[in-house]
Structures are given as structure tokens and as C-alpha cells.
């Protein structure tokens, strides 16, 4: 009994994905614009989501735009941007109640789609430029947000790890942009960035909900009249081998130190070994039954959290933990030892079996959320690799211990980043 049905339709310059499911009381529509990461335009692209939310031609202020959303029964709307491997993706998403649950729906779906289209193609523009007051104000907002990253220690440590580890790679470009670029961005140049996005970016549109595709598709085609010929192709990351392990220590006034480790897996989503990598990650640090949690936290009481996750479009695995400043050596050694252990084949049948079930469960949970479904299918779009979900479960089920150990031996430590307290936290570098 399939609980979701995904169909893909090629339209005028975009791909339309219709996902039929009875799981939700609302419909979700997401527009995803993608192009390869570039240092030159990144700050402008990071700024666009802020500016586009501040008004359109027909809803010329943020307040008027938000009032329209209230009128659509509190439709939830956001625009954000981020990295997907070495691509930059701008997402516009709207979530609104299914008409079945609204007493006087009045073509709510059509109105919602019209709203999305307005935001995307009809921004507040005059003489080929955005409103300069809005642009200046949003530059200030984005600058303030960039300055605040240092206050979020986990995020800051993660950013610094990637800075150091991927220094000469596009992946180290900050998706939120750079302060030093702000002065060069004007209402005109930003509009140029917008035109590039709306005309040239690879565009995928997702519609998730309890819908009849035969009824919904014509409405979408009628309202979302994008007239574009996208030539942009997303890029795949090239695997890279580390030379020798880099050790970086930085100090701030903090109570808890952050120990983050960056590994190269060389395996991305499209690789046949990808599911084996997911299993490796699960045994190593992805779950509360993983070696990192059991050893760093439960056995040695060194941390409240110690976990790993994979960057599936770039071929990295990142470990993060929060520890007392003076426990650096012990925590680092234990983390590295857990990887060595798996390399040597110290994986029990039980660990493998639990991890298979946990990875399968995680994937099923993902497709119980509308946003999760969109990400699940978009991941495949970016990788240019389409796998049936049942096939995925089968691959996970059939993996062996040898598969996991083989993958473990491909993974190499690249960088150890330690953010520690100014007073104390002596490390042997």
C-alpha cells in the first residue's frame, strides 16, 4: 500500500513534482532555485530571500504581504537559502490548509498559488532596481545576522571547521554571505542577481498534499506561468583526499568547549556505497546506540552530546561534541578510536542489525513530513540519481558487515577543530 505517489512532469523551464498523500491537513508548495556556488554572487543571493519577503508589486510592504497570508487562513510562508553540496539553493515555500477543512474555502488553493507566483515573478521593482530603502534595511539585517553567528557556538564551530577543512574548495563558501561584500551591493546589482535566478537557475517545483493530480496540474500550469529556458546545471562535488590531519584550536569566553572533527568519506549520494556509508555513520555516531554516544557520553561521562552526521552531497562526515575544556585529549582519542575500531571489523551483528532498522525508521519518519518528502526527492534531483524508495529499503537490508568495514577504511580524518575557553583548556598541540 503506497502512502505517497510521486510523479514528475517537465514544464516550460521547470520540473513539476506532484506528491499525492493523505498524511496532511495542509498542502505544501515549494519552489527551489539552484545554481553552483560562486564566491562573487553569494552575498547577493543570501540577501535575496530577505528582500523578496518585504513586498511585491501588488503587496508593496511586508505588512500587506503578511496580511494576505492571514487571509489565506494563516498560510505559512518563508524564503530561505542554503548549500546543497556545492550548489546554492533558494527555496520559496507556502503551506496552506486543504480546502476540505475550510468552511468557505473560496478557491484557497488557486489563491495560494497566485500568491506564490506574485512573490516569485512580481517583486517590488522600479526602473530595473529593487526599492533601495528595502535593500539597505535588509543589508543591515543580514549583516547583523552574520555578526551574531559567533554567539551560536555549535554553528560557529561547524562553520570554522568547514572553513579550515575545505579552504580551497567551493564548499567553504559561506551560504549566508560576507560582511565585506555589503558595500558593493546596490538595488540595481541585486536586481540583476534576481533576474539571473528567476530566468536561469535550475527550478524544481513541488506540490505535496491530498490532491488529485488530474485536477491540480492544470491549475498549477494555469497559475505558475513561468516562461523560461533554464540552462543552469547543478554540479557534483569531486572527492578529495586529505594530506595530513590539520589541528586547529581557537579560544573564546565560553563555559563548554566544542570539539568538532571533519572526515572525508569520498562517497556522495549517487555512489553505490552511499547506503553503506549511512550504516557506517549509524554505527559510529548517528544514534543513541552508536559507539560515540556509548563511549564518549555513557562510558566516560565526557559530554552531553557526541554525534556524527554525513554531508551526502559533498562526501564529508562531521563529528561534534560539547566537552569540558580540559578533556580535549581524552575525548579526541576516544572519538578516533571508535572509527579505528570499525575499520578493524569490530562491529557486532547486533549493532549492524539495529542500525539497519534505525536508518530505515529515520527514512520513513522523513517521509511522514511534507518538508521531509520535498527534501527526499530534491536530494535525488541534485544528485541526478533516482532510486525507488522500496529499492532503498532493500539496499539497506541487504548490506553486510564487510560493506560497512570497507567503507570505514575509505574514510579519513582531515581536520580537528577545537573551540575552547580562554582560561584553561590546555591542549597539547
Amino acid at each position, binding site marked *: 500500500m503506497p502512502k505517497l505517489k510521486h510523479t514528475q512532469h517537465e514544464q516550460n523551464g521547470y520540473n513539476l513534482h506532484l506528491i499525492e498523500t493523505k*498524511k496532511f491537513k495542509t498542502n505544501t508548495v515549494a519552489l527551489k532555485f539552484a545554481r553552483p556556488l560562486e564566491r562573487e554572487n553569494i552575498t547577493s543571493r543570501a540577501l535575496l530571500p530577505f528582500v523578496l519577503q518585504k513586498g511585491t508589486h501588488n503587496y508593496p510592504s511586508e505588512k500587506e504581504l503578511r496580511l494576505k497570508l492571514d487571509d*489565506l487562513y494563516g498560510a505559512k510562508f518563508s524564503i530561505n537559502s542554503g548549500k546543497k553540496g556545492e550548489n546554492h539553493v533558494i527555496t520559496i515555500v507556502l503551506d496552506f490548509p486543504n480546502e476540505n477543512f475550510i468552511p468557505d474555502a473560496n478557491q484557497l488553493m488557486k489563491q495560494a498559488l497566485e500568491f506564490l507566483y506574485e512573490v516569485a515573478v512580481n517583486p517590488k521593482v522600479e526602473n530595473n532596481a529593487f526599492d533601495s530603502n528595502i535593500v539597505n534595511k535588509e543589508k543591515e539585517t543580514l549583516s547583523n545576522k552574520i555578526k*551574531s553567528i559567533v554567539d551560536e557556538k555549535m554553528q560557529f564551530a561547524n562553520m570554522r571547521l568547514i572553513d579550515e577543512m575545505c579552504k580551497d574548495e567551493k564548499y567553504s563558501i559561506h551560504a549566508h554571505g560576507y560582511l565585506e561584500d555589503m558595500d558593493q551591493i546596490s538595488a540595481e546589482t541585486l536586481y540583476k542577481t534576481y533576474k539571473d535566478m528567476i530566468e536561469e537557475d535550475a527550478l524544481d517545483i513541488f506540490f505535496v498534499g491530498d490532491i488529485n493530480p488530474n485536477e491540480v496540474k492544470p491549475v498549477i500550469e494555469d497559475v505558475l506561468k513561468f516562461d523560461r529556458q533554464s540552462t543552469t546545471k547543478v554540479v557534483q562535488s569531486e572527492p578529495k583526499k586529505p594530506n595530513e590531519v590539520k589541528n586547529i584550536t581557537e579560544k573564546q569566553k565560553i563555559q563548554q568547549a566544542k570539539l568538532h572533527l571533519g572526515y572525508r568519506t569520498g562517497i556522495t549520494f549517487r555512489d553505490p556505497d552511499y547506503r553503506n556509508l549511512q550504516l557506517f555513520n549509524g554505527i559510529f555516531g548517528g544514534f543513541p546506540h552508536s559507539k560515540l554516544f556509548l563511549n564518549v557520553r555513557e562510558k566516560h561521562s565526557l559530554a552531553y552530546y557526541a554525534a556524527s552526521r554525513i554531508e551526502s552531497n559533498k562526501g564529508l562526515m562531521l563529528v561534534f561534541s*560539547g566537552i569540558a575544556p580540559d578533556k580535549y585529549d581524552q575525548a579526541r582519542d576516544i572519538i578516533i578510536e571508535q572509527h579505528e575500531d570499525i575499520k578493524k571489523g569490530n562491529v557486532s551483528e547486533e549493532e549492524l542489525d539495529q542500525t539497519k532498522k534505525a536508518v530505515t525508521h529515520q527514512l520513513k519518519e522523513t517521509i511522514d513530513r511534507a518538508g521531509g518528502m520535498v527534501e527526499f526527492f530534491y536530494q535525488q534531483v541534485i544528485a541526478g540519481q533516482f532510486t525507488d524508495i522500496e529499492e532503498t529499503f532493500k539496499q539497506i537490508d541487504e548490506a553486510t558487515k564487510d560493506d560497512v568495514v570497507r567503507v570505514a577504511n575509505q574514510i579519513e580524518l582531515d581536520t580537528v577543530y577545537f573551540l575552547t575557553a580562554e582560561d584553561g583548556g590546555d591542549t597539547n598541540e
Partner: protein
Amino acid sequence: MNKLNIPRINETMYHEKLDNGLDVFLYPKPEVEKTFAIFSTKYGSIDQTFTPIGENDKVTVPDGIAHFLEHKMFEKEDGDVFQQFSERGASANAFTSFTQTAYLFSSTTDEEKNVETLLDFVQDPYFTEQTVEKEKGIIEQEIKMYDDQADWRLFFGTIGSLYEKHPVRIDIAGTVDSIYDITHEDLYTCYETFYHPSNMSLFVIGNFEVESMSELIRQNQNNKSFDKPNGIDRFYGDEKDEVYKSLEKIYMPVTTPKCMVAVKEKADQLNKDKLLKNDLVRDMILDLYFSKSGSYYEELYQNGLVIDKLRLELYLEESFGFTAIGGSTTKPEQFGETVKEMLLSIKNEPIDEKEFERAKKKKYGELIREYNELEGTANTIIHYHHLGIDYGNVFKILEEVTIDDVNEIINEWISEERISICMVLPEGEK
């Protein structure tokens, strides 16, 4: 099992109170993959002073004990309970709030076995001196992680300025000093008092069979024996209606200051007969003025008093309640004074019919959306159940709210002597 229809979204859930007092809610949703279950006790960080079961004198236990107990429930003589869930691919977790401690799992197979494990591990405590000592280092790191987070410090700084005696002012996890005072005997005292089935609820939602699940739960509970429940005496101190301090400043190493303005509830507004309506109306008003479509938000943003969005918090519980509006700001003093004035002015400008209808429409859509998420649905229903309120009435209450109700509620809600301002400022500015 009593069948309960959920209006507007055309779904059904079931409720039963078992002989031992446990409230069981079953909400089948065959269209989803997973099952989510939460086993919750009405016992949180505020329940520090109470009369232990079977005793006559009240005791006060160390700060952070409900949270500590939550951590230790997972450890048993023969190992870690996480392991049992992991063996079935389920993910288990727990949390402690001001008023409840909850244990939960989500799974996509073996949901009946998992429910059994959930019931069994929470109803079978195992605390020893050694296991309690071992946990202290872990919780110390959890506390220190929060100590570095400006938003967390701001939130607790705000509550600490509102409340003088009520234990809501104490950090949920306690302090590094207080957790080192906790003993395994303390944990048993709290456990025996607060984990009686009559003080607990079990909520299962998702892809499972109602009949066999219900039978399994009944059997499981019938096989265990519990003392007769005799009610729990809890003491929260003698708190006045006015705020403790109208201004609080916290200095820590941050780059961007933060500020929060909060309104403390008058005790008589927390009566359970009007609490849900009070909650809905406050939420609608906050939204009308301080969400991104709100007039006050626009003013704050345009005048450069807030970076990006505002954080809106609303807590209405039996023994305490407050509303808070916070944000990152480069001008914390001005933010504080301006938001305070805005709150006071809401009372003087009654809202008009059009705004009211808009707020109602938005709230209606949001209530529908809440049912997308299994966790949120279960948590909300349990939260109100613990307060003695049937959340099934929420659509009806919303539909029946009138503009006069709203203006009357506003009038009772906000008052200068119940407002306080809290700031997190960079250390250098001290």
C-alpha cells in the same frame, strides 16, 4: 474505550481511564508510516516542595531533580533501555518541562512491543549511588551548554524577574552545584510520589490497531500493583501578582544584545474554566500586534529596534503564567521601553471587528495545521488534559469568541506593575 470525535478534521480518537488511574489516549492514523507514543507524568521542575507519599511533613528537594530523574529512568540493572528500542529501530527520548516529565518513542515497526517497553521502563525505577554519581558529569555538560546560549539565559532571566518565590524561576536542569547534592534516595522519594499511574497519561498516535493496543495496555497495567492514590500536596510559595523586579540585566560574552519584555499573569486568570479561551485570545492578540503582519512589529522593525523576527512565548499553567516578547536588538534599552509602552497601549485601543475576524481566520488555519504533526497533536492534547481541560473543544471555543470577550480579556491581562524587562548585554558594557 470512549470514542471522541475531533471536529472539523473528521478524525476519531479514543480515551479510557484504567482502574489504576492511568489515562490512555489512542489516536489511530493509518495513512502515516510511524507511531508516536508519549508517557507523561504531571511532575516538572516546579514540583520541588511537596509531601512525599505516605508521609506527613513536606520536603524540599534539590533544584533540577525532575530532570535528573528523567535521565536516570533509562538506566537499568541490565543496561540501557535505549538499547531495547534500538533493537527494533525505534528512537526513544524524554524531556522535562516546568510541569511535566515525558518519555516517548517513535517507531515504524513493532509498535506494540515498544509501547510495552515504554510502560515497563518508566514503571520500574533503578537508582543506585553509583549510577547517580556517573550522571553528574553528563548533566554538568548539559547545563554548561545552556549557560553559553544567550536565548536560554534571557528566557530564564525574564522568568526570574517576574517571579520571586515560585519555583518556575529555577532553571529546569538546576545548577552545577545543586545537581551534585542529588542522591539516589531523593530520586526514589520523587519517583514514588509523582510516578503513580493516577498522575500520568499515555498517548499513542499513528499507524496501529486500536483494539489490540488497548488490550495490551490494559493487560500490562493489570499485571502491576500500585498503592491506592491519595492525591499529592504540592507547594509553590506565596507569590504576589506584581513582578519581582521590573528590570534585569545579564552580562555575558555576546556580540548582539537581546531583550525580552514579559507580562506576568494574575493568579485569577489561570482558572481552568477559562484557561483555553484565555490562551487562544492572548495568542491572537500577540499575533495581531507582534507577528510579521502586526502593526507593532512593523514599527519595531522599521525603527531598527529588532533584528529579524520577534520571539513570542505564552505560558498558562495552573500555578503560574506569563507572556513574553523578545528579540535580538542593537538597542536593547529602547526595545524594552518601546515594547512595554506598546503592551500598555493595547489596552487603550480596542481592536476593531475586521482585525478580530482576520486573527480568528488565521488561528483557525493554524489549528488545522497542528494536526499535521503527530508529536504536536499528542503533546497539546496531553498538556491540556493535565490542566483538566478537554482540547477537543478548541474549535468550538474559537468560533464562539466574540470581540467583546477579547476586549474584556485584554483589560484584565496587561498592567504596568506586572511587566518586567530583561536584557542580555555584552560583558564589556558592564
